[in-house]
């Protein structure tokens, strides 16, 4: 682990832009508490997750499952009383350069944020400054991180950014309240992409929007991702949406990762009972109308989490062992793939065949012409300056 020199962060990331598929953010054993001492609530426990370059990684879970806490802690955006109590987070800048985010100081973080990692929040109305015009807010980002740009260049870039998300330049002088919810969220996305970050965290970016607007924004996001090649950590409670847009999905429950798998594999062949239950909680738009049951009970109270597996009080397959022993996150299914899927369930420990619902055959890994997590077309404009990479 090389702790990065502060100066190197300022070098443009485009030089020798790394190929997609390599790890970008590596989180190992991350633990986050709210509060200190005996009363501390363990919001994230021993979470491991790898985000690859150019990948859309969905992080799904119910409220209180720790998904937002995980993302904010991993990028050091967590505020008190949140405390990171353990683990490591490595951010790979490319060319073997990496930075330990948990050890980084404020100056390093300041350079890293927005330039390499940007965030889009759920409530654009609250994330945007109500007394500054859209143009000024976009310019603010550029002024802070690109001191060499002059006013005209900043304005040009702001126009370009708004154009990228389908907003005309005459909106530069608008204030947030003059924009619709969808436009505000587009402005947030434009701001997040202002410095062409390698990673964008999206925390429920479309939850407050209507379905048509949501779909439009997700389409734009997919097109921008294909063009610019950034990775997305997409946090949402809407698993049915995530299956459509994400390359792979991690399911969180009670502060722990319950399962992580490629999106189609997770949908067609879940390995964790909680995933199975979640998938059975979304009524379908097709086929016969069948009675669905959801998941009995309610999410765990993190102040007094259940012993053993956090899901055991609601699990239909609960065994004696689940009540006392915590299942580790272990590989399930194909072992030959580069990034094997994992699940934390005693049913999958190999001692006995799991129930049929949790042992459905996995779909073929590349059923569509878009197999690679993180497709970056060869003729990406943003890549051209990288030369013959």
């Amino acid at each position, binding site marked *: 682990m090389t702790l990065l020199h502060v100066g190197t962060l300022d070098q443009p990331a485009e030089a020798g832009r790394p190929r997609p598929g390599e790890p970008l953010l590596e989180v190992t054993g991350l633990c986050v508490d709210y509060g200190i001492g005996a009363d501390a609530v363990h919001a994230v426990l021993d979470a491991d997750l790898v985000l690859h370059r150019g990948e859309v990684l969905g992080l799904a879970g*119910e*409220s209180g499952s720790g998904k937002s806490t995980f993302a904010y802690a991993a990028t050091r955006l967590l505020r008190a009383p949140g405390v990171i109590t353990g683990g490591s987070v490595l951010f790979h800048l490319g060319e073997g350069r990496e930075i330990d985010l948990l050890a980084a100081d404020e100056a390093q973080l300041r350079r890293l944020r927005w330039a390499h990692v940007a965030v889009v929040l759920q409530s654009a109305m609250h994330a945007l400054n109500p007394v500054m015009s859209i143009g000024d807010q976009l310019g603010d980002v550029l002024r802070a991180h690109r001191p060499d740009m002059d006013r005209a260049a900043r304005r040009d870039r702001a126009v370009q950014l708004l154009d990228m998300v389908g907003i005309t330049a005459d909106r530069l002088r608008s204030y947030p309240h003059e924009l*619709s919810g*969808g436009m505000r969220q587009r402005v947030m996305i434009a701001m997040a992409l202002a410095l062409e970050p390698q990673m964008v965290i999206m925390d429920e970016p479309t939850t407050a929007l*209507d*379905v*048509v*607007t*949501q*779909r*439009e924004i997700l*389409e734009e996001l*997919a097109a921008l991702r294909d063009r610019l090649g950034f990775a997305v950590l997409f946090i949402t*409670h*809407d*698993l*049915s*949406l995530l*299956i*459509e847009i994400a390359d792979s999905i991690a399911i969180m429950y009670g502060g722990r990762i319950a399962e992580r798998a490629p999106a189609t594999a997770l*949908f067609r062949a879940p390995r964790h009972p909680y995933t199975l*239950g*979640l*998938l*059975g*909680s*979304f*009524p*379908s*738009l*097709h086929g016969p*109308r069948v*009675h*669905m*049951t*959801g*998941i*009995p009970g*309610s*999410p765990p109270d993190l102040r007094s989490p259940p012993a053993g597996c956090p899901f055991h009080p609601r699990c239909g397959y609960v065994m004696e062992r689940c009540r006392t022993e915590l299942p580790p996150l272990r590989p399930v299914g194909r072992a030959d793939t580069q990034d094997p899927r994992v699940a934390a369930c005693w049913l999958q420990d190999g001692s006995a065949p799991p129930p049929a619902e949790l042992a459905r055959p996995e779909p073929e890994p590349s059923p569509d012409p878009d197999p690679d997590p993180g497709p970056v077309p060869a003729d990406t404009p943003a890549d051209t300056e990288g030369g013959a990479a």
Partner: protein
Amino acid sequence: MTSPSTAAALPVTGTPVLEARSLVKHFRVHRRGRRTQRGAVVHAVDDVSLAVPEASITAVVGESGCGKSTLTQMLARLIRPTSGELLLDGSPAARRDAREYAGQVQMVLQDPFASLNLVHTVRYHLARPLRIHGLGPGGHSLDDEITSLLERVALSPQTADKYPHELSGGQRQRVAIARALAVRPRVLLADEPVSMLDVSIRLGVLNLLADLRERERLTLVYVTHDIASARYLGDTIAVMYAGQIIEQGPAATVTDQPSHPYTQLLLAAAPDPDRPSPPALRGRGAPPSLVNPPAGCRFHPRCPFAMAICAQQAPPSIEVASGHASACWLHAKDADPAMSQNPGPGPGPIPPTTASRPDSHPPQGEGT
């Protein structure tokens, strides 16, 4: 064009428990901006007719701002319609005493964190409607009544002594439902009852509503933005757009064979993991301002199939199949783009036998 018949309405058979006839709600705009003339009104709900039969579940689906909550509030008599008629058991609701009406038609609100009083126990919430409506303990004690209410919503009797903050979101919403049931209503209006709840417990509440209909013949109006849950719970679906009902029919038919371009758009945009490839959205953009809604069909500025007539005349309600109505010119029997003839406002529904029934996608005619 003067007050054309626009909303998709179905012929009413029998006496519905609750019936809305051409309900209109206009809100006056009080702002005196430069661009807003005095006397401007928001056309929140325009000419909505809806018949809710006994022991049925009617799902009202629409995006934010389409008027679905305004409609619900009119159905609950919380706000007075600008015009139109509301009938309970075939007699005008306006003539009834407000409390008596509330004893028949109750409402469950979206946010159980806001709709319960946090300084009072569950017992207080359930006892209060009983007292107000003079339904105090008859032969048995108040506690028995409260216990039975809690049992009907699958909560334990111990819940009665808890405060709202001690309950989970799903439990709170069950308390809100129990409170509505306390006065033994016949109609329950549920305005987005599960949208604030965690996904894994939403189905539990939806199934509870379905059970209440099944066991107690309760009539339900389920208002939601989620067309998938409307399909799951509803017998019929009414789709609202810009203050009007643009399509209504049996739940599975409306979602499997949507006849209005807006319903098709809504379905294309809805999350669907089974979809093999990303959907093609036809009719991008946002709903219109309801201060100056577009003339003719309110969806025409976005509609991929818009014809000349759509901008001029509001479409009548056309029965595309038995029990399935759509307010769209595409389904008019003699819909030709020239549209020289000038049908009066709201021609009668075309009989099902002659109604042309297109496939799930109306004629192609990409953006005129």
